[in-house]
């Protein structure tokens, strides 16, 4: 149910390795929970982000939710398209609705994140 070509955080972000860099987004579960997304606030290219700390905000009609960095590192790309079209988050959370690309400070950081199976278990427990 969750793509196993990437890893996950307990805060519902995914991170996918691409030539030593990590593409980061949020899971379908999080997107569903954040229904009615209105604005997305993302960092600038060049910003330093820190593992488990907020790197952006998703504003839905009823609430603002932080986006948490899966790893520490430097932002090298930002998806301006979802800032302009936040509804993409619900339509294509694992593809077009990626949020940032990070140059990780520690190249092995990804391995410490959850596997798709472990994340599915976590969500299964939370979803009830």
């Amino acid at each position, binding site marked *: 149910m969750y793509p196993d070509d990437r890893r996950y955080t307990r805060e519902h972000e995914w991170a996918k390795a691409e030539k030593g860099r990590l593409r980061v987004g949020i899971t379908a579960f999080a997107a569903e929970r954040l229904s*009615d997304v209105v604005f997305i*606030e993302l960092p600038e290219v060049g910003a330093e982000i820190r593992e488990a700390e907020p790197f952006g905000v998703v*504003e839905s*009609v*009823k609430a603002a939710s932080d986006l948490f960095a899966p790893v520490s590192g430097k932002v090298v790309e930002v998806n301006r398209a979802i800032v302009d079209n936040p509804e993409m988050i619900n339509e294509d959370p694992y593809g077009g609705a990626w949020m940032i690309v990070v140059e990780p400070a520690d190249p092995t950081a990804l391995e410490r994140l959850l596997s798709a199976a472990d994340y599915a278990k976590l969500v299964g427990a939370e979803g009830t």
Partner: protein
Amino acid sequence: MVAEGLRRTSLYDLHVGAGARMVPFAGWEMPVQYAGVTEEHLAVRTGAGLFDVSHMGEVRVEGRDALAVVQRVITNDAARLTIGQGLYSPMCTPSGGIVDDVTVFRTADRAYLFVVNASTRAKDVTWIHTHAEGCAAVVRDVSDETALLALQGPRAAGILADAAGADLSGLAPFHFRDRVVIGGATTRVFHTGYTGEDGFEIASAWDDAPSVWTALLEAGRAHGTQAVGLGARDTLRLEAALMLYGNDIDETTSPLEAPLAWTVKFEKGDFTGRDVLLRQRTDGPVRRLAGFEVTERAIPRQHCPIEVGGHVVGEVTSGSFAPFLKRPLGMGYVPSALSVAGTPIRIEIRGKPAAASVVKLPFYRRKKIPTEVR
């Protein structure tokens, strides 16, 4: 995951079956959304929406002195009510703060029905009791036996007529009709609501609510009727600038500071809070509730500071993205001089000041029918 000890309305199983997300609210486990806040909100503005508001309280005041009790406890004037008619009013403390905002209906010659907020129900019952002491009037909390639904939107009247098999077009705003049969159950239909649209509230016996609910959804199916949760109920009432007790008004705010001066009838005689409110009217309230629109891509939330010239002048009492008007807006108390439409202000949103402008309330007013329904 919902905390223990929460009460459920008789529609709980239907809500869960419809996929509602249930949340704790004022001691109740209530649906916050079904299809999504935006979709539900737009359904009410363009078609119709059905709400379970059974958590709200109902209190009867009956007896020879019933009118005198009602007149002392509310600021609006119940003396003008005919049987079958109601009004909206604050109940105030002696210092002019708001105990609750309620609707009051005259149900018989010497009988009145208060519809009160769930969060203040116990306090309200005590407050009304206090005003009835030594009077020939009986105060009775009938909330536990009374379910309440709301059918709201431009299509509501047609759907209700279909479901009830009765013509309710003659029912004026803020009036009710008894013995309307919906889904086999006998109901009382009020021409009232809390959305800024035309609409109705339907009271029934507690256990009859599921058949009423089902009949209304059935009749509304062809009209795109949606079940609507508390999430959209809040955004709808915010666009219409209707007060939310506990957010926009409470015991620290007066009806003259809130945009409720029209509900304070000084000429009717004495009522609790009159002296202080009279002085406030003479002097002019020091602060007023202002509506504002944020002109940046940021959404104001309750408790965000309001700033002018780098100084905090107030805080947001309600704020959201408005799903129909499609912009971020909110309300908050500011010094009266700053409450004028066009005044530039800033709202501190997550530590950053966002540009905003004071606008006239309500944000949204429906086009067709000139009478305001609440």
